């Protein structure tokens, strides 16, 4: 009898739980529906941050000790590949490791233009660039870095049997490279070794872009690699087990996929490094905060910004911040890719072809609130397609299209998108039902609510937008379908990291396969071409052209940027001479620590 009543009690308890759960679910839905009307109230709940309040250079707290060791946390949920050579690597985690023991011949300044402060100097004359490698630049085994090594890197990457991904427009731009790649020539006509330390490369086209990242600046040690067939180089021990470079640290020990330890290179050309030892170890993104708190790592390669608000007052680190060279955007599918011609073919009859419809969809969304609610201000409203990480060319005076639902409705009315059958949703100008398919990627906690937020915003101006297939897509599926112009996608949300080169042609040009909107126009192509013309060597001219282009994209809206992003990097308080970002003039050999052991959080 007693047992029976116990069971009854359990059942009752379960029912109560079930009800409580159901109530929670209901509450959530309501919250979502109200999110727009109460958006201002919502943002007050969490603290807001601004990238303006961060610096990208670590404050030095004390004098560095002589020697010491430093641990770098490589945040990655996958093991690093271990292709440890600039000429062969493809994954970002490998690059994080290579930077400690090898470096490019040229460095660049804040606006990403090559400088003469690096291991080599350069001089541009006509179409020829002359590189002079400094006398004291030596490989870790003592052999000098020579012009021949630099030429050799080009010969390997251009070789028909080269299996990496680096061969591309940077190389085809060299005179004679295409003939060499096709196997028609034994040497590259445009590359001339003048003497041991001097090399001349002649380019077909010299544009301002050439000097912002379009020169291959990584030599390959010929005395090591010359006996290895090109096809086997990337898997050879010289890349995987005993990698070599001319950077500040020397590789000591590699545990495949896990960690790499370095010792200092006393012969480093900028001077002997401060630290005795550097360890790079892979840590999982779920344990970043704990590793930092316990002093297990001094800094990390990337920090999940969404965890910042909870850890902003971690006592043993300083957070550095910088504007990310990236933006999130919403694109409209407006045509097809013609693979044979290698051109974008816009379709004037595409569902999204009316530019007023696209303008209205931009006006309908409030990206500032989105940035505040989901990212605590660490992502913020984007205005143009050149992000503020390129301050010289980002047009600050261009406001983009601000959040204005009335304007959006007005634009739609003008374009003939009105509700004719009184279902509360607008039909297209011919009176047919309009359903817009929106594709977005899964990943992270915020992917789903953000996609829903956009759909609801568009619904509020009367547009019926549905998720393609009714759900979010996994990364590979998403790009596969977007790339192949899947008819089930009309609008998509994507993100781009932009290179150090500001030239937007690779993303939005008429001849780029990565221009997923498949939109272009004569004006677009002509402005983009002017941006890399000879006149564009004049900074003001180039700025003016890119301002015009940014304005054109705000007018035509084949794509609109949604949010710009901040990168945050926590650094242990004992670290000195550390910076993130470009052109800071702080180099890895100066890195030091003020005490033997990392500080731990209180």
């Amino acid at each position, binding site marked *: 009898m007693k047992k029976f009543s116990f069971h009854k009690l359990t059942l009752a308890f379960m029912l109560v739980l079930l009800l409580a759960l159901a109530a929670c679910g209901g509450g959530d839905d309501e919250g979502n529906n109200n999110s727009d009307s109460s958006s201002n109230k919502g943002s007050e709940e969490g603290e807001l941050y601004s990238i303006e309040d961060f610096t990208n250079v670590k404050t030095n707290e004390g004098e560095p000790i002589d020697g010491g060791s430093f641990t770098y946390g490589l945040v990655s949920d996958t093991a690093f590949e271990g292709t440890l050579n600039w000429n062969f690597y493809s994954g970002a985690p490998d690059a994080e490791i290579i930077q400690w023991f090898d470096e490019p011949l040229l460095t660049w300044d804040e606006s990403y233009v090559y400088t003469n402060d690096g291991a080599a100097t350069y001089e541009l004359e006509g179409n020829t660039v002359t590189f002079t490698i400094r006398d004291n630049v030596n490989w870790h085994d003592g052999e000098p870095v020579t012009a021949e090594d630099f030429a050799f890197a080009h010969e390997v990457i251009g070789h028909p049997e080269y299996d990496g991904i680096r061969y591309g427009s940077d190389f085809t731009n060299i005179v004679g490279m295409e003939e060499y790649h096709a196997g028609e020539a034994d040497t590259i006509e445009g590359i001339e070794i003048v003497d041991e330390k001097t090399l001349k490369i002649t380019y077909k086209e010299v544009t301002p872009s050439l000097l912002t990242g379009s020169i291959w600046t990584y030599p390959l040690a010929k005395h090591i690699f010359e006996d290895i067939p090109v096809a086997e180089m990337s898997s050879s021990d010289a890349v995987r087990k005993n990698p070599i470079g001319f950077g500040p640290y020397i590789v000591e*020990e590699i545990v495949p996929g896990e960690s790499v330890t370095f010792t200092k290179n006393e012969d480093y050309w900028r001077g002997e490094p401060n630290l005795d030892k550097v360890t790079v170890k892979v840590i999982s993104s779920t344990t970043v905060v704990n590793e930092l708190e316990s002093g297990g790592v001094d800094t990390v390669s990337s920090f999940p910004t969404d965890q910042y608000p909870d850890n902003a007052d971690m006592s043993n680190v300083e957070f550095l911040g910088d504007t990310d060279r990236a933006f999130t955007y919403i694109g409209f599918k407006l045509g097809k890719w013609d693979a044979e011609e290698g051109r974008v073919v816009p379709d004037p009859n595409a569902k999204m072809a009316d530019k007023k419809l696209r303008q209205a969809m931009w006006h309908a969304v409030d990206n500032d609130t989105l940035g505040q609610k989901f990212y605590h201000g660490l992502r913020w409203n984007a205005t143009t397609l050149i992000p503020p990480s390129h301050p010289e060319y980002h047009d600050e005076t261009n406001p983009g299209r601000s959040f204005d639902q009335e304007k959006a409705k007005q634009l739609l009315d003008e374009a003939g998108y009105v509700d004719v059958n009184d279902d509360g949703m607008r039909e297209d100008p011919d009176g047919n039902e309009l359903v817009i398919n929106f594709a977005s990627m899964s990943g992270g906690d915020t992917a789903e609510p953000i996609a829903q937020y956009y759909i609801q915003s568009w619904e509020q101006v009367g547009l019926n937008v549905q998720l393609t297939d009714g759900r979010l897509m996994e990364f590979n599926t998403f*790009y596969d379908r977007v790339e192949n112009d899947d008819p089930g996608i009309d609008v998509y949300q994507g993100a781009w990291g932009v290179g150090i080169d500001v030239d937007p042609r690779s993303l939005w040009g008429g001849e780029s396969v*990565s221009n997923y909107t498949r939109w272009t126009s004569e004006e677009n192509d002509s402005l983009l071409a002017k941006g890399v013309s000879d006149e564009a060597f004049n900074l003001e001219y180039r700025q003016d052209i890119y301002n015009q282009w940014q304005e054109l994209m705000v007018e035509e809206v084949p794509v609109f940027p949604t949010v710009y992003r901040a990168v945050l990097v926590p650094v242990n308080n004992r670290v000195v001479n550390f910076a993130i970002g470009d052109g800071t003039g702080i180099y890895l050999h100066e890195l030091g620590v003020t005490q033997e052991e990392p500080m731990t959080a209180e």
Partner: protein
Amino acid sequence: MWKFTVRRLLIMIPQIIALSIVIFVLAQMMPGDALSGMIDPNVDPERLEELREKHGWNDPWYVQYADWVGGLMQGDLGQSFRFKMDVTELIGQRIVNSFWLSLATLLFTYLIAIPLGIISGRYNDTLLDQTITGYTYIGFATPLFIFGLVMLWVFGFMLGWFPTSGSVTPGLEAGTFEYFVSKVNHLILPALSMALITTVSTVQYLRNEIIDTKQRDFILTARAKGASESRVYNRHILRNSLLPIAAFFGFEITSLIGGTIFIENIFGYPGMGQLFLESITMRDYTVVTAVTLLFGIASIVGALLSDIILSLVDPRIRIK
């Protein structure tokens, strides 16, 4: 006995062939390929297309399958696109880690399961038994990936007793005593986390088996003959109850594979499970197919092992 084993082995062959086709076709059907994750404005899309052509990724699946099987026959699993090294070498690197992790987990599993199962079976329906069964129910209900994270946080970070990631401390020289100790030290926490969860089914199995055996007639006979209580338990009951557990061993291998995928990812332990998951997300086909095939074969062999052990234990199985 031999006939049975040989027959089971022969059945394995078509199983493995079917498995390989299914794996290969499914892998091909995954959207994207190893290069689609590299869309980056700094990489020329034409170069990616050129590479796809060069690797034969644009060929129909049966052509690629024939190539793959051709290589397989010669013991060549192909080259990992991502790691730029032979898949056999890559797997060789990782399988060692996974082997030790699995072995340690099995060891812990039985170290926990056998005493708990015996206590719980012998003293069934006492408070002690209820505590143990309580633990097994909690174990059944707890997802491994949550439990792993909690263990990592408590013993790795809060108490700092164990290292928190990797399979060895960076910078130690292979072959030294220190290296060995560090390896073992890195193993304990992930193995224990997994064992504490996977052991619960074995505990319950053993408990039920003991309770069941306790009521058999031959136990009654043994007691009637005047055998002491400890003799009854240790010689008569335990022996009979452990045999089915031994048979369970083969299936244990299969469940280990599932477990290592979570555990290796949480503990950043570079083994087969981690390799499997990341090669799927990175679309490193050659690795995906090779690893899945290996897992598949391991499961089939595990089942075979169980069958063989069972047939040794229980002669009735062999009867057609």
